[in-house]
């Protein structure tokens, strides 16, 4: 039963992580770039009302997305933890008897280590989520909300770049082929 449930959980968490990121990034861009242009001909009072009501609806999306992103991120990280914490063994998810002996392993350069990229992605991701949450807390938005949203959009784009780089480094580390002849198997 676990063999069916766990892959499904992984798949679902991966999907939810992407969907919630799309809602956060796309919603932030729309809120920060499209809406102000559309309402610039309204009176200041009307503009504030529209922004406040949109913010109230968007708040729930931000909170739900933030929670889902954090939980699904933890699940995905757990799934790939071996690749993130190991800078010597190339073939992830491989039974230990198929892994190369220590003398045949080569340390991966810093830029190629999936763990480094993962740490950068996770830390900047948490910062972006915290900024998004702080912008929606309370009844009144903070001072200069558009400037903060613009900053958060840049950080979110950086977070996505780091996620892409993490995945690339993880796949590269998996695809690297090294001479592999464990002594135990040679005899059999």
């Amino acid at each position, binding site marked *: 039963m676990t063999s069916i449930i766990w892959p499904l959980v992984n798949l679902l968490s991966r999907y939810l992580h992407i969907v919630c990121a799309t*809602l956060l990034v796309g*919603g932030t861009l729309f809120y920060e770039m499209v809406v102000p242009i559309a309402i610039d001909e309204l009176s200041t009072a009307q503009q504030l009302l529209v922004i406040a009501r949109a913010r109230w609806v968007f708040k729930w999306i931000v909170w739900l997305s933030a929670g889902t992103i954090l939980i699904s991120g933890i699940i995905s990280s757990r799934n790939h933890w071996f690749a993130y914490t190991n800078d010597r063994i190339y073939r992830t998810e491989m039974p230990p008897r198929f892994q190369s002996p220590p003398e045949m392993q080569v340390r991966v350069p810093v830029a190629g280590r999936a763990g480094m990229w993962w740490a950068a992605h996770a830390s900047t991701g948490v910062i972006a989520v915290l900024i998004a949450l702080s912008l929606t807390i309370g009844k009144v938005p903070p001072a200069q909300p558009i400037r903060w949203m613009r900053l958060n959009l840049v950080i979110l784009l950086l977070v996505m770049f780091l996620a892409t780089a993490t995945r690339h480094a993880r796949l590269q580390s998996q695809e690297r082929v090294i001479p592999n002849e464990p002594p135990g198997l040679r005899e059999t």
Partner: protein
Amino acid sequence: MPLLVILSRWLHIVSACLAIGGFFFFRLVLPRGLAILEPDLQTAVLLKTRRTFKMVIHSCILLLLVTGVFNSIIGLRTYNLNPPVLHTLLGIHVLLAMVAFGVALYVLVGPRPPPSHRKLVALNLVLLLLAVAAASTLKWASQKIITAHLTNTSVTDSR
């Protein structure tokens, strides 16, 4: 080359985010924000939003097509490891995306939206989410197949 691969994938994801998040905001968040305005004013603001959003969506579609073709070429070696599964998922992803692009272009063409634009935007949102699900499953399945392939290769090598 690795930078180009990462950049292309990043642009693909960012464009998808802007399209999906934008349609979500356009269909579900903005109408509620505008509900306090008079109907005429609501329509005027929605039309102006639509004009700006159109430029975003057109750029996103172009980027998705260009980066999508590039990513497919790069990933073809992996997809050929198990064509029945991976090519099917890739095909579903591409098909859903193409239909979604068609609907998006139809909804945003001309100075005024078509009469059924609310339903079409909702449909488009569902299509885009399904396309993401297909892409996500494709990546998950290809990861599993790569791992299985490498394990098999390792066993064969060691024998």
